């Protein structure tokens, strides 16, 4: 990396950029970690309804300390609130909503995204000594759109956008868009298409950091 490398986006900036693209009226599930930040950046003029795997639709912001409801947590096991119009249901129904294709969007984190839309985000492989899958595979298989928010490369500079995933797969061909710290990239039938480079970044610089062919949008 050269000393003149443009700035990369922070997690908050990536979440804010993604939030801009969520249309009014969508039903959305946010994964644990960076995806959770997205709810902070949806503008007030849009009605976006958040789903939580443990059986909630219409999740609102975190409560302040005086208004915590101990019986109300989200899938990340954080205290949340419910908005007027919210509903609660059991886990089979919650995953029926997911698997049945009723959610407009799932926002997930990622280890790798392949140019055919394959997603790897649940396991680091056969030697994973702390395995857990949660709802990731159901969300990957079921939501109408799957947008991944992740750094473009690992800390070692290895591209997380690849021709073929090396980590165990979460879902096949399901990712439709990737928001990284240097670009917004669509996953199309022709492969990765650069939709937008972060401020200061060129197509060539993004391509250089992408281990698959990048098409101009």
């Amino acid at each position: 990396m050269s000393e003149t490398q443009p700035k990369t986006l922070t997690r908050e900036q990536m979440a804010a950029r993604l939030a801009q693209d969520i249309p009014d009226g969508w039903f959305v599930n946010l994964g644990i970690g960076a995806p959770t930040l997205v709810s902070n950046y949806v503008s007030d003029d849009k009605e976006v309804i958040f789903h939580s795997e443990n059986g909630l639709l219409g999740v609102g912001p975190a409560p302040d300390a005086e208004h915590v409801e101990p019986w109300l947590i989200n899938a990340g096991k954080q205290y949340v609130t419910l908005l007027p119009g919210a509903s609660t249901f059991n886990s089979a129904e919650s995953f029926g909503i997911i698997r049945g294709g009723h959610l407009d969007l799932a926002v997930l984190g990622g280890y790798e995204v392949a140019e055919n839309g394959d997603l790897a985000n649940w396991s680091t492989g056969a030697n994973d000594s702390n395995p857990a899958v949660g709802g990731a595979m159901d969300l990957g298989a079921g939501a109408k759109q799957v947008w991944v928010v992740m750094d473009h490369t690992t800390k070692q500079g290895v591209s997380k956008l690849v021709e073929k995933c090396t980590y165990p797969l979460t879902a096949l061909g399901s990712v439709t868009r990737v928001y990284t710290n240097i670009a917004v990239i669509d996953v199309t039938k022709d492969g990765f298409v650069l939709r937008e480079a972060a401020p200061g970044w060129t197509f060539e610089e993004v391509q250089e950091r992408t281990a698959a062919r990048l098409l101009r949008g």
Partner: protein
Amino acid sequence: MINKFVPDMETALAGLTDNATILMGGFGSVGQPVQLVDHIAEMGLKNLTLIANNAGAAFGGMTKLLQTGAIGKVVCSYPRSSNSTVFLDLYREGKVQLELVPQGTLAERIRAASAGIPAFFTPTAAGTMLGVGKETREINGRLCVLEEAIHADFAVLEAWEADRWGNLTYRLSGQNFNPIMAGAAKVTVVQTQHVRELGEIDPDAVKTPGIYVDRVIHVPYGDPAL
């Protein structure tokens, strides 16, 4: 007269033996049958199979249940825990087996058992490591795996309200796996925060009809810890 209320934990868990398979409700700490699990940990049982969403989390007797070697196998979607390494340590030492199941598949396998469906095809996990070894079929252009119903010997659940017929309600995110586990086991045991007279619970508010429930014990322990 039907009265499913039992006076003590011994009666609630009578018949639970070594090698039993147990469904446990709860997501995170909410809706966990904490005191039932505490009591199971005191029973000195061996080689239990525990089926739950977060079987590795620390709450009440769970840690003790794992530490005393009562659990031989865990069937779970998310054994990872921010507040405990007990499960992880035992798993790494090979002392507890783990069957990892995607959360929606876990829920549906349990619901299927309760509803008399022996198995079903689902796209979740098809083509992944968790679909390996399962019958795979392309249905309407999508790859699907065959998943079998999960039956158990006991289900231990937590409700918000219960009446003597075993009708149950739940509170907010306390519902989770509890209603679908009721009816998936030979014996369904419920601890409830509140006791109601017959007719006090609005029929439209009942989430688990009493027909699924065998025993209810009143445990008004209050709010769950995070």
